[in-house]
């Protein structure tokens, strides 16, 4: 077992490289993990993406230019507008100013299909911290400012285009991010609570308890998970509030996912059980619960965080697929999967490829959680060499 604070200043330490060594040797474990993590460039970039996502989850209504119910029936399935810093085709030639070009729409009388052309003369002024739809920040504080939006409330500014029923795709993605990412995070936390409790008991006590829990896990793992969650999700009553549905779907995903985590935790407990610090804690009169959760668990908490981060992607993918199939979350709830339903008719998709952008969010989120998890896993044990 390695010491928590690393090596003390050795007497034989060389004077010349002592400074770096001292810094290294006296650094806390947290600092060492952070140094190791920083070396993993992809993980650091991914961590920033996740932080941005967290900000979006917290400040959803502020980041979204439009309210959740905003619907513009004049602009259905409109293509993305390009954000421009200046234009050269105004009356007085070149001028600065953040804006987007408006659209001219034309409806084909036979197919009823609406086509849009950008109209450079129709200038929609865009600004930061503009007034827009009213909302309650954190569900409490009434406010009407938005991070970005058209300067004149009601002007069309659809940076990523609109959906088939005229909602701003960008705003909808922002709202969906809150739902989809939080399903992953909450689901994993639930699965982890179960996994840590059962895995810890199993690995710490061993014997027949271990045997029973392991057989239970094997059984759970043997039942094919995907048909299982399809079946349970479909058996839910169809008329259910979106919030209840959200929590039940999250719980189902957690129930399917806890086994792998329980195995991981059990392995760790099994390995640590015979360490001296565990024996000494027991001799000092600590109860089993205290030994397990105050002494043993913290010694591999960074591994746990890495495992957490690595299990979120499969949750997000599962929720997305379930919702896309129409068995998970349902409108009016928006998640990335619900949004992608819009794109599943090929007649719609072929004219509006931007409807696939929520899919890009799924991929980015999944990759980011994976990379951060990989980085953490490699950094979790800074004493390895």
């Amino acid at each position, binding site marked *: 077992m390695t010491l928590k604070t690393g090596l003390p200043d050795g007497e034989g330490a060389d004077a010349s490289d002592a400074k770096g060594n001292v810094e290294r040797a006296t650094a806390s474990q947290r600092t060492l993990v952070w140094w190791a993590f920083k070396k993993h460039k992809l993980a650091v970039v991914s961590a920033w993406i996740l932080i941005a996502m967290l900000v979006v989850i917290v400040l959803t209504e502020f980041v979204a230019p439009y309210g959740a119910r905003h619907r513009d029936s004049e602009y259905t399935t409109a293509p993305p507008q390009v954000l421009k810093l200046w234009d050269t085709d105004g009356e007085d030639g070149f001028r600065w100013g953040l804006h987007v070009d408006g659209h001219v729409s034309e409806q084909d009388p036979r197919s009823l299909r609406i086509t849009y052309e950008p109209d450079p003369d129709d200038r929609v002024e865009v600004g930061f911290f503009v007034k827009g739809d009213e909302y309650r920040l954190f569900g409490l504080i009434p406010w009407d400012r938005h991070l970005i939006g058209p300067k004149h409330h009601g002007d069309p500014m659809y940076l990523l285009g609109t959906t088939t029923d005229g909602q701003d795709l960008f705003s909808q993605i922002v709202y969906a991010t809150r739902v989809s990412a939080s399903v992953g995070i909450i689901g994993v936390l639930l699965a982890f609570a179960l996994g840590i409790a059962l895995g810890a008991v199993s690995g710490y006590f061993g014997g027949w308890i271990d045997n029973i829990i392991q057989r239970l896990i094997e059984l759970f793992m043997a039942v094919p998970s995907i048909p299982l969650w399809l079946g*349970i999700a479909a058996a839910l*009553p169809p008329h259910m509030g979106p919030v209840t549905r959200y929590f039940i779907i999250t719980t189902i995903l957690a129930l399917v996912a806890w086994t792998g985590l329980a195995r991981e935790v059990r392995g760790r407990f099994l390995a640590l059980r015979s360490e001296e610090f565990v024996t000494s804690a027991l001799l000092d009169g600590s109860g089993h619960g205290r030994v397990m959760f105050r002494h043993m668990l913290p010694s591999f908490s960074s591994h746990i965080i890495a495992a957490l981060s690595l299990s979120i992607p499969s949750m997000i993918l599962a929720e997305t697929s379930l919702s896309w199939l129409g068995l998970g979350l349902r409108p009016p709830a928006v998640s990335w999967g619900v949004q992608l339903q819009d794109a599943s008719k090929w007649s719609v998709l072929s004219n509006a490829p931007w409807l696939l952008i929520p*899919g890009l969010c799924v991929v980015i989120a999944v990759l980011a959680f994976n990379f951060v998890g990989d980085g953490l896993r490699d950094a979790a044990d800074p004493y390895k060499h």
Partner: protein
Amino acid sequence: MIKYLGRRAVYMAATLMAISLVVFIIISLPPGDFVTALRAKYSVMGQGLTESDVQALRVRYGLDGNILQQYWNWITQIVLHGDLGMSFEHSKPVADVIGPRLGATLGISLITLLMSWGIAFPIGVYSAVKQHSIGDYAATTVGFLGLAVPNFLIALIFIYFSVTWFGSVPSGLCSPEWCDASWNLGKVLDLLGHLWIPMIVIGTAGVAGLVRIIRNNLLDELRRPYVTAARARGVSEGRLLRRYPLRVALNPFVSTIGWVLPLLLVGDIVVGQILSLPTLGPVLLSALKAQDMYLAGSIIMVLSVVTVIGTLISDLLLGWLDPRIRLGHQR
């Protein structure tokens, strides 16, 4: 070996029991039972069911007993008579709905499995042997993406390009002019033309996972002392690779039979849905949405049984191939 075989068989029986229980719970979860649903359907169509019909159906499905009796009734009907119940959505026995589609599903899954092996094996070996080469980085990146992109998204992207480039989406398993034709080269080519999208969409996640596993396993083996020893004795690289590490690294191929099957079947739900394939996926989905629970439950049951048998076969093959696994269980 016999002990190992017996142990696996007992596990399989226990798993099947557990699966059947779970499936039965799923079937009985939605409020109301099969007969009330059927009655509602008939009264919408304007044909009432007579009381005696209702009573006969209730007796047939054992709906008046407690939950355990119902389960017993349901499972004995399946095991003894192969009777999976009625689908009220299709108004015919579940077995008749599943039967014709099972072949196509297993066929596509099998072809896709073979294709995944064929693609994943050389890529995995290459990227392990030439670690840190450009090819390795490319394979790893593509593999990462393959696991990160949900397979329905791949399907949607393919459909987008198919429509913009060719103006249409190949749906079903055959074009109208070939469907009734007898088997010849043209029909086979036509079938392949329809199969490539499903195969790519269904297979991507599997291939990505396989490449990753093979690469990691082979890398682990290549670092072993025996490889260095063999190299020191002057064994040529190709021969060395073929002779030892590759054989050990082949194990995951066998164990994939277990976990790739359910993956393929989910891919099938997605692709079958978009491309209207005559497979089990779309039927399962519509049954689930309509809460046609006997049908949905039975399909889940069939898929699970296929998976469990697949796992058993792969376990037995592994035990036969690798003495460490066979003996490790005996201790």
